[in-house]
């Protein structure tokens, strides 16, 4: 009988130990935050929020910058696994190229929670918490068609061609705009999510197409660049610009009437959810939704007061 009590006591202690924030050596569990780049303020917010949330839950957290380089990302994964990190909160550099890294962590028993960007696999990551870019751009597409009254010429400026978000946004937008034959896309070009590149791209497009009515951009940085190009060409008052992200300068521009709309994403919600999922994993949960969308809200002149205070 004593043996049975001892067994249950041991089992209870082991269960308690597995639920605690500490590892076997009694030190706090460690969470690695690996992000595609810290060269973009949006990803800085994502990374810092994830690390801060992990720390607030009682874990050690360290941020790794992959500098948009899958080889460097692979090094970070090797490092995180060999250094005994207990979970990885991950913003992938490449939807296909990052799968191998996530699989390596899985094989080593380290759960990976993707944030914002996805990997093209439903078997590798423990869960993927993703901005619902497609649905957000359907909302922008509807507003775009209404504002152009179903007719006009427009330009689309795409983000990184190899990034899933680029195409999710483009497809969401086109799933609405392409139903209207009066709307004609005269140019579609990539500017890599970069403000200066978008400005140069639009300057060049305007030479061949000076009579456009609108520009749809895959992010707000490019929308701001496009606006600059239009302003320099004296067309800012006639051409409507649409972005995506919910960046502060774009919100201010919507308030000032320079930009028509954007899609408000919530990097903080994604980062905090990823950290909370890691905690639930440590407590024993395993049935996570494979891909969970985070809603993107349409921001326009009509509702900008909800998103900006001054």
């Amino acid at each position, binding site marked *: 009988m004593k043996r049975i009590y001892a067994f249950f006591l041991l089992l209870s202690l082991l269960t308690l130990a597995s639920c605690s924030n500490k590892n076997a050596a009694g030190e706090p569990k460690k969470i690695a935050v690996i992000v595609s780049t810290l060269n973009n303020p949006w990803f800085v917010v994502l990374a810092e929020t994830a690390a801060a949330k992990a720390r607030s839950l009682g874990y050690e957290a360290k941020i790794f910058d992959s500098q948009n380089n899958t080889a460097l990302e692979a090094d970070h994964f090797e490092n995180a696994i060999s250094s005994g990190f207990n979970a990885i909160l991950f913003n992938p550099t490449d939807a296909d190229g990052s799968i191998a890294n996530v699989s390596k962590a899985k094989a080593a028993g380290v759960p990976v929670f993707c944030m914002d960007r*996805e990997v093209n696999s*439903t078997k590798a990551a423990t869960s993927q*918490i*993703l901005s*619902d870019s*497609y*649905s957000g751009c*359907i*909302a922008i*597409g*509807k507003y775009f*068609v*209404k504002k152009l009254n179903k007719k006009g010429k427009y330009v689309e400026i795409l983000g990184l061609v190899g990034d899933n978000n680029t195409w*999710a946004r483009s*497809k*969401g937008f086109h*799933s*609405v705009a392409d139903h209207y034959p009066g709307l004609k896309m005269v140019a579609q070009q990539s500017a890599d999510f970069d403000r200066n590149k978008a400005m140069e791209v639009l300057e060049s497009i305007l030479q061949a197409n000076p009579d456009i009515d609108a520009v749809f951009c895959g992010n707000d940085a490019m929308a701001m660049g496009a606006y600059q190009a239009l302003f320099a060409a004296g067309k800012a008052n006639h051409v409507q610009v649409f972005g995506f992200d919910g960046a502060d300068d774009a919100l201010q521009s919507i308030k000032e009437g320079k930009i028509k709309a954007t899609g408000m994403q*919530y990097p903080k*919600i994604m980062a905090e*959810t990823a950290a909370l999922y890691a905690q639930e994993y440590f407590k024993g949960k395993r049935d996570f*939704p*494979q*891909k*969970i*969308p*985070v*809603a*993107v*809200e349409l921001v326009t002149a009509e*509702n900008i007061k*909800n998103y900006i205070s001054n």
Partner: protein
Amino acid sequence: MKKFLKYFAALVIVLFVGYHSVYFKKLNEVQANTPSGKINTTAYTRTFWDKKLLPSLNKAISLDQLIGMLHTDPENTFKKYSNALGIGELKYFMVKAEGSVKQVGDNDLTVTLATDNKTVKIETEYVYGNAVRDASGLINRNEFDNTSDFNEISAGINKIIREEVLPDFKRTVKTGDHITFTGAIEMNKKFLNLSDIEITPIQLKILK
């Protein structure tokens, strides 16, 4: 002679095994028979519409009642009646109501609700988005490995509405008609706006 028979038998066996080990087929035949692993979203959407969505519409909440509850106790009303498949402030409700047509616009219908004189809009042109799919609460996101398949369900539902629900109705409806409708609405829980309600229709009926 014995040696010859032995070699002949061995040759027959090799030819027999070889013939049955290798076969040739046209590539297009193989591709046609290979399962892609992708859900047939068109068939899925049709089955969902006929077998799940339409039979569930009697569970839709009365729009007047919902507006009243959202005024008095939004937190509990969202908790009890809204659906959403992801994280965030956008939530969806399945609603039904009766009212009279105040205005027939190019893109929507303005309807005065029968019970409290409030006006709402029914979308008749820009039927896009996830309102119906998500308001139904009948689809499990985890059934879909692929995000684009999941999005195609919404696109398929909206196509049925645009092509099968709206054309006859739009042709005949006019100002002053008394109508009943069932549909889906999207609400932002954080920035609740009850003065500008838009309904994506699923069923529309003119009572005259």
